């Protein structure tokens, strides 16, 4: 048996370790001092440090042109893991700043809050860098456990507690299914690591292809729960609505990106391992059905919502469907399309929740659409920011959301999934309605006596909005900034 070097290039672990160390530091600092205002800054420092290390490693890997592994192949440093780590850390940084700006009124200044955010992000990094299924499971559990707690953080709210509880129970069940799938995959191939699974399946005398398929389906179900593919998405609207809004923002970008990174790697490996033929067709077909359902369920669900936060939650399901198209397309084109979509969605989503935060009540409640009435006149900049982001999410050019949909649809059509792409386009028409309704309410509707006045925006939140807005416009006008950067290192799937 030919095992990779046990230690390998341990340097790829540095970003994860940085986050964990800073989580510990933040926790100690929070427990032993009363200086709560500094916690956010400390956590942000950790995220930025991890980001710097990631970029450094990425540059180094690009120069070297090969993927590196650590711990016997359990941990991988390749374009997929670096690109997705980068997106995760950006999302985490924005969410930390967002939470910090509303720390006091949302009661987010307990010493455990920021460490949990950092640990969740660290779990995300493990998830996208995992080289075998056991590490993947570990990353998933680290991330999920932290997020279960964060989702139930809102005080004095039954909805928040109930959502966190449901999320936990269903999530535990999904993890069990995932473990089951991993066991079956091991049973079929005798290996946990992606490279080993691929090699075992490629052997001429590989007999357990059918069993591997069943294992792959279980693994798919486990991960589909985390990315919220229908019909495993049911937890999402409740949890997104119930969680404190900065946590919702965090989940919509960090958790989603991490889960998609894992899904891309897993399905990429397993679809290849299953090969072509009657057995190989099943996994893409199942994925296609689920993605189609996701796009329909998410968009039509969002159509009915009268709460903006809940609408964004359902539309998060819909966006998962569009990224799913890229997963289904597979290959370099699929990974690149997914990374662009998630990268730009990160900015748009956090900025949208940032705007929403400044419109909701002190206790993070009240997200009805009518609250936005007349915002265009009363807070022109805030309204303009939200309008641009809504239009981008709806897929209107020249914003980043349009390019995201275009690359995804193009990847899907090129991979022979034209029918699903057409379904995606049709459901995107539905999305136009509910996003446009937000814009319309802001500009074309007069506020009445009950419409609350938007609160002044903390400077830190304004920074988040500005970054999100700028990225939405800049990456829409110059998508090459990201697409060129990732396209120059064509070793997404190579190196197994």
């Amino acid at each position, binding site marked *: 048996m030919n095992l990779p070097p046990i230690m390998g290039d341990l340097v790829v672990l540095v970003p994860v370790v940085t986050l964990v160390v800073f989580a510990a530091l933040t926790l100690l600092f929070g427990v032993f001092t009363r200086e709560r205002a500094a916690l956010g800054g400390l956590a942000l420092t950790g995220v930025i440090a991890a980001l710097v290390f990631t970029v450094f490693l990425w540059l180094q890997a690009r120069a070297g042109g090969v993927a590196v592994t650590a711990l016997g192949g359990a941990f991988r440093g390749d374009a997929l893991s670096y690109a997705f780590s980068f997106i995760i850390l950006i999302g985490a940084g924005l969410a930390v700043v967002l939470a910090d700006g509303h720390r006091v009124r949302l009661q987010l200044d307990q010493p455990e809050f920021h460490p949990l955010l950092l640990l969740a992000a660290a779990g995300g990094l493990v998830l996208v860098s995992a080289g075998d299924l056991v590490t993947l499971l570990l990353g998933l559990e680290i991330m999920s456990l932290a997020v279960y707690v964060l989702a139930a953080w809102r005080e004095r709210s039954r909805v928040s507690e109930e959502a966190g509880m449901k999320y936990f129970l269903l999530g535990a069940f999904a993890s069990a299914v995932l473990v089951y799938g991993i066991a079956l995959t091991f049973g079929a191939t005798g290996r946990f690591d992606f490279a080993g699974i691929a090699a075992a399946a490629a052997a001429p005398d590989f007999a357990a292809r059918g069993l591997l398929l*069943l294992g792959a389906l279980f693994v798919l*179900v486990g991960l589909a729960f985390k990315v919220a593919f229908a019909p495993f998405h*049911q937890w999402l609207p409740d949890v997104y609505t119930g969680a404190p809004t900065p946590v919702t923002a965090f989940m919509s970008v960090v958790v989603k990106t991490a889960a998609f990174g894992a899904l891309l790697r897993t399905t990429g490996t397993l679809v290849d391992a299953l090969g072509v033929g009657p057995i190989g067709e099943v996994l893409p077909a199942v994925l296609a059905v689920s993605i189609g359902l996701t796009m329909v369920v998410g968009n039509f669900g969002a159509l009915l919502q009268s709460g903006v936060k809940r609408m964004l939650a359902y539309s998060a399901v819909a966006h998962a469907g569009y990224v799913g198209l890229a997963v289904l397309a597979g290959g370099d084109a699929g990974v690149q399309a997914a990374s662009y979509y998630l990268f730009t969605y990160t900015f748009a989503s956090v900025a949208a929740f940032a705007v929403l935060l400044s419109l909701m009540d002190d206790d993070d409640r009240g997200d009805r659409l009518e609250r936005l009435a007349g915002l265009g006149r009363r807070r022109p900049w805030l309204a303009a920011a939200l309008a641009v982001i809504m239009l981008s999410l709806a897929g209107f050019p020249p914003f980043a959301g349009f390019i995201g949909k275009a690359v995804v649809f193009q990847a899907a059509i090129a991979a022979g999934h034209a029918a699903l792409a057409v379904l995606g386009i049709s459901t995107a028409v539905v999305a*136009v309605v509910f996003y446009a309704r937000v814009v319309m309410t802001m500009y074309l509707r007069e506020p009445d006596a009950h419409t609350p006045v938007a609160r002044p925006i903390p400077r830190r939140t304004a920074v988040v909005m500005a970054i999100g807005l700028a990225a939405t416009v800049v990456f829409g006008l110059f*998508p090459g900034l990201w697409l060129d950067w990732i396209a120059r290192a064509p070793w997404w799937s190579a190196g197994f």
Partner: protein
Amino acid sequence: MLIALLLAFGAALVAPWVTGRLGRSAGWLLALLPAGLTLYFLSLGPRVAAGEPLVQRVSWVPQLGVELAFRVDGLALLFGLLIAGIGTFVAVYAGGYLAGDRQLPRFYLLLFSFMAAMLGVVTSDDLILLFVFWELTSITSFFLIGFQHESEESRANALQGLFVTAGGGLAMLAGFVLLGSMAGTYRISELLASPAVLVEHPAYPLALALVALGAFTKSAQWPFHFWLPNAMAAPAPVSSYLHSATMVKAGVYLLARLAPALGGTPQWFWLLTLVGGATVLAATLLTLLQRDSKRLLAYSTIVALGTMVLLIGVGTPAAIKAMVVFLFAHALYKAPLFMAAGSVDHEAGSRDVTRLAGLGRSMPWTWLAAGLAGISAAGLPPMLGFIGKELAYEGLMGAPWLLAGLIAAGAVLLLVAVQVAWVPFAGRTVRAPKAPHEAPPSMLVGPLALAALGLTFGLVPGLVQDGLMRPAAAAVLGAPYAFDLYLWHGLTLALGLSLLTVSLGVALAATWRRWQPLLLARFGGVRVGPVAVYEGGWRWLLRFAALQTRFVQSDDLRHHLTIIVAFTVALTGGVALWRGGLESMVWAPSGAYLHEFLYFAVILLATATVVRSHSRLVVITSLGVVGFGVAFVFVLFAAPDLAITQFLVDTLVVIIAALVLIRLPSSALRGEGGRDIRWLSGAVAIAGGALITGLLLAVTGLPFDGALTRFFEANSYPAANGRNIVNVILVDFRAVDTLAEVVVLAVAAGGVGALLRRRLGRGDADAARREPDGGAQ
């Protein structure tokens, strides 16, 4: 071209600031930008006429093969001139019409953004770029249509317009992507150069249908015509701009632009002539029901658009010539008519033509402009509209049915012209809701100038023949085409038909006051056809959304679990039955002893008790029995370490579960729902258990790869100095995994601790408060 567009967008951004500074007179200054663009397009005229289109390319998204490619040929030049030229006058007019409105700065921002986007549409040489500008026009026009109006209905109308046009636009994008993959390029000029590839491709009908859908929705063709009259809620400058020269003509532009690449086939002919014909027919009939001057004009616009689509569909050189001239003439008369109707509304207080009369005295200049434009709209000499209509008749000579429809439409257009340009002004008695007075100069320049141009080009068509009309027709035909325009054709059949049209129209107009109220009383409230379909479809959409949301979304945790398990089981079980995967399953109950079966019987019995019992203590105890039973099985099969772990874990779980369950209200244990639900849950659970059993048997049936066992056996003592292999694996070989597990536990402990700390000492009354967040409508 790129610079010109950037200038236009830049101007849009500074326009609000300029307006804020200059106030009333800002319109005059801001009009300099479109005026400059008009001059720019004029300066391109000679080279375009000489057959040298202006081409510019800048790389944009090379990954998608999309570039900022612009190309100004005859057709683009014609549209560019109309957009910039009429835009100039609209900017001036709006300064007067919206004077004092505090939203005027925003209006100019939107207007110039729209203008720039429109110019982008007509000059793009790249399909994706064209789509980008196309959707920009949809957004900006959405705001322009909804501008200044706060009522629920006009918001719904604006949304309707956006929904229809943006939806059509997305279909068009799909069509474009398809075209791109068929031809291997998104560049329009290359598509036009190789039409055979597209027309003979098997996907041609689909691509044609998708692209046409985009064009039809934008140009308000039947059955998508309903959004245009509803968009009349917009202020007059917007209507005159969007519905004369720009927005609605984008669809016509697209069809004309792609005619050389996609046209010339039976599908093209039938699709365009049928839709165009149906549009002409439907709009002609609907026009008869209108009294509002702007709605009259809106329906007559649809008639004109239908005519243009029809002519493009016919596609003969004569038809294309007619289309180009008619399009030009229509823009030149429709804009002043809208402006005049707006002026009348502004100065006399109504748009209902039955409530207005005798305004000519107080508003002579407005009347002059409206009158000139009206003559052109009616298709009477010596205006350009007359030439356009004559040519249209000639172009359709081969198709008598279409011709007959067009004659009826021509008569109705004359009726509209009379209603809008004659009835409100003529007569001695003045009737108006408020004392009328002449519009300010800013609101006169535009209508007068445009109407005068219609007259000039009618009298001397040679002015535009070589420089504008021929190159435009050549671009649509894909080949140079020389023709001459005359006001006087001689005594031709077309002239005779014109006479017939005019007499029919005059007869209609003369008797209008008598039959229109009857017609209105009979059909006024009827909502049939596409509008009903749209509204019905909308309701259906909402109902579908509600239904599917109710099905997959409920608050019940068990419902969620049932769906997840059922889906997983159906998926994997179905696949296993369908494609195999359980072949290695073996059923070999070899040499089992009686007492072994006893353990299994105990486990099964305890499981049944857990499901059946309503008492918490019984449930907890039974769960413990299940766990202990499993542990005994481990003992039986010589795995004492596993057994002891299982004992410990199970004991802990039972104790914790007991502590938690006792705090829960007793109703939490009892499942809601009736017998059916319980049976369903049971069936799903049993299916899940059966599937897992099958899978386990299948795995155990596989040959076991002992490589890892041998590796650990051989290495655990020499490499790690440990004899207990399991321990060595945990703390040595997979130490990092163990470390990570510790992190997981730490996270869990920290999280639970945090939650507990937050909730300690808090009354339940607080917690019971529910908030009014979100929720479904």
